[in-house]
């Protein structure tokens, strides 16, 4: 069988290749001197001399579709079986068997076993190709570093081990503590059959944009755990702020105007969140009015001109309130978001990921890489020519019932399709030339995004609203978008994107670790969907929540149970996914995973 390393199968060599590896004295790695890399895509080919025109030793043909170089003696032969007679490459192998059975497709840098008549794969050979490709894409062509600076220090990436779900049983000391310092609130809940934290939110006047996002946040596992674990205690926080007596406190008091008897000090959105979590999880099922939070958020948002009675955009609100939580904490601890580590505040700890952007020179292949933190990913919803390329491959490779379904699905936009488009290499226009450090002139470039570090919770925002000030018009895109309940993000990671760029070679790319934790880290489960219905200027936001594998619809004060098909068919605007290992049923049963 084959072994799985770095999330991919490392196939066992065929007997001829295995034989060659054990008996040959020529290491594969030395081949990288003969590998020519064509910019910008990194396509590798084998040439003894850069300018040679390879031809078949037997028949002298220059350009048939495949030329193979024997790995033992470098003899080049062609391989066309049109005439029915064995190809020259096969003949060479048969003649000088057993040592000359492995050959290299010189235009594709792929190993070919003439005895098995199949393409074969070898880790060391692939490593040689990748080394050559890497050298070609870095400055000077001589450095051996794979990734140029700046790069987040590996420690920041917080390697995540698989955490087994276990129900908590307090020990004697903890039980004593619980008994003396707390009181159960079970008695207050007249609906124990419904999960805690399920509670309607009153619409305070076109505030469904806020309610919908809040509902999703109340059930964002790491965020919920943070506040319910008292990690931000609003009483302590306010007490500390009041005793500070610094300028910010005075300034805020002056700004609020009116009677400040009720405002206890500076605005802290995290404190207001803490209050809301307490209220929503209290067991009281009457709809809650997030008035204080609205008041606090509006003061924060006033700086960016978002505060108005008119309908707001839920996504803008989301970004704004996370920023508000960060800002308050940032002032206290002077940590910025710039490294994407999430050390600055809980908002970033939960939602922040790191995006990698590669800009490749079309002329020489030199690649410039930058990393930026991101809170969410905004995706374009364009007319989709069907499903992703992977689906297209599936349509051709799967026989039988697969075909009917794939043809039916052409024309549907999918979340994975949007992510494919987000991470595909895109040629920048000729009016956007970048200065290439290697060529020392402005060149046309290829740009490609990928995800360097996945956040604990991924929020995908679909750009359904377009506002063009130049054309003085706005429109809403109503097109349906398919989104999965389980999402594997590994194809969009930098390691996968890089691997694909370099021809899917067997090689640990971009900080990959040779264990299974990577696979688990990239599996996500959907837990909340914010939908928008109606027109651009007269619409309504509703949130669907997935709790204990049951879907609930949160429409302001109305909380109802819905079948999952309703959610699948809904018009998703923001989709919230949490890492699978953090997603467990809030019962004593086994985890979902």
């Amino acid at each position, binding site marked *: 069988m084959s072994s799985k390393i770095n999330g*991919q*199968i490392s196939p066992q060599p065929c007997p001829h290749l295995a034989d060659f590896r054990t008996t040959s004295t020529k290491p594969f790695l030395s081949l990288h001197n003969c590998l020519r890399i064509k910019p910008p895509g990194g396509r590798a080919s084998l040439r003894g001399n850069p300018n040679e025109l390879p031809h078949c030793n037997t028949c002298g043909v220059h*350009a*048939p*579709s495949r030329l193979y170089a024997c790995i033992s003696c470098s003899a080049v032969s062609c391989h066309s079986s049109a005439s029915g007679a064995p190809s020259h490459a096969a003949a060479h192998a048969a003649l000088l068997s057993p040592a000359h059975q492995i050959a290299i497709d010189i235009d*594709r840098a792929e190993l070919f076993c003439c005895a098995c008549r199949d*393409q074969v*794969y070898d880790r060391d050979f692939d490593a040689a190709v990748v080394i050559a490709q890497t050298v070609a894409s870095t400055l000077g062509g001589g450095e051996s570093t794979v990734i140029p600076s700046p790069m987040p220090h590996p420690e920041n990436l917080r390697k995540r081990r698989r955490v087994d779900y276990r129900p908590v049983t307090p020990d004697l000391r903890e039980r004593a503590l619980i008994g003396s310092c707390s009181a159960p609130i079970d008695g207050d809940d007249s609906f124990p059959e419904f999960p805690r934290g*399920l509670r*309607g939110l*009153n*619409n305070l006047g*076109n505030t469904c944009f806020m309610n919908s996002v809040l509902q999703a946040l109340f059930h964002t596992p790491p965020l919920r755990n943070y506040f319910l674990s008292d990690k931000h205690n609003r009483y302590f926080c306010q007490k500390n702020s009041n005793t500070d007596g610094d300028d910010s406190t005075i300034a805020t008091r002056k700004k609020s*105007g*009116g009677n400040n008897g*009720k405002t206890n000090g500076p605005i802290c959105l995290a404190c207001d969140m803490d209050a809301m979590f307490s209220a929503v999880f209290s067991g009281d099922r009457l709809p809650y*009015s997030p*008035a204080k939070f609205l008041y606090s958020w509006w003061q924060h948002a006033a700086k960016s*001109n978002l*505060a*108005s*009675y*008119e*309908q707001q955009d839920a*996504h803008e609100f989301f970004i704004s309130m996370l920023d508000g939580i960060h800002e308050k904490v940032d002032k206290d601890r002077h940590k910025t978001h710039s490294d994407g580590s999430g050390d600055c505040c809980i908002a*970033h700890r939960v939602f*922040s990921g790191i995006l990698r952007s590669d800009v490749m020179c079309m002329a020489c292949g030199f690649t410039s890489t930058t990393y*930026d933190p*991101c809170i*969410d*990913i*905004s995706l374009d919803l364009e007319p989709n020519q069907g*499903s992703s390329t992977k*689906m297209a*491959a599936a349509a051709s490779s799967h026989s039988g019932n697969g075909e009917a*379904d*794939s043809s039916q699905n052409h024309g549907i936009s*999918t979340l*994975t399709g949007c992510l494919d488009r*987000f991470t595909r290499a*895109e040629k920048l226009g000729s009016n956007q030339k970048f200065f290439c450090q290697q060529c020392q002139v402005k060149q046309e470039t290829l740009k490609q995004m990928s995800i360097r570090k996945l956040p604990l919770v991924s929020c995908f*925002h679909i*750009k359904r*609203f377009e*506002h063009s000030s130049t054309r003085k018009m706005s429109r809403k895109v109503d097109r349906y978008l*398919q989104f*999965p*309940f389980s999402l*594997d993000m590994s194809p969009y990671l930098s390691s996968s994107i890089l691997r694909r760029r370099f021809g*899917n070679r067997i090689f640990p790319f971009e900080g990959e670790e040779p264990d299974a934790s990577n696979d688990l880290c990239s599996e996500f489960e959907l837990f909340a969907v914010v939908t928008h219905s109606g027109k*651009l*200027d007269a619409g309504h936001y509703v949130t669907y929540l997935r709790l204990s594998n049951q879907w609930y619809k949160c*429409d302001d*004060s*109305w*909380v*109802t149970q*819905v079948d999952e*098909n309703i959610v*699948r068919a809904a018009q998703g605007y923001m989709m919230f996914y949490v890492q699978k290992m953090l997603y467990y049923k809030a019962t004593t049963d086994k985890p979902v995973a």
Partner: protein
Amino acid sequence: MSVPDEEDLTSLQSQISSHFFCDLLDSVIVDVASECHRIAKLGLDANLDEEDEELKLSAQARARLADPSNSNESNGKYVVDIFGQTHPTVANEIFDCMNCNRSIVAGKFAPHLEKCMGKGRKARLKVTRSSSGSGSQNRYSRGSSVNRLANGNPSFAGNEHSIGSSQP
């Protein structure tokens, strides 16, 4: 050898170009075959089945929704929520405004707060030509604003993403 005449020339040209084309086509086909072979052998397409399944479920869900014979409650009016409660269109909980201490009905809190805090655009909106001159009438007849593009960062080639709008 004599110079080939017109007919021979064109047929020769078309033979050669046909030959080149076939070569190119072969090359492209082998490229794709080689890549797909590698992807399959290395197990890089392992998720295809799950993706197929999700797409199928999604299609079924939409079909079921479109079928009028199915009684679905998604768009209908609510009778009771899961807690057996009903709620009026305008939330009727009453509490005190944090700014001015007046008692406000929940469903009207936001417009009140905007006036109360004196910061809404509406509160300072100048009377336009088309309005009847009354400030309040202008406010409600104008309807709601357009929703803005989520982030206003200009981008290259349309590949926009939120780079965390918090200013570092």
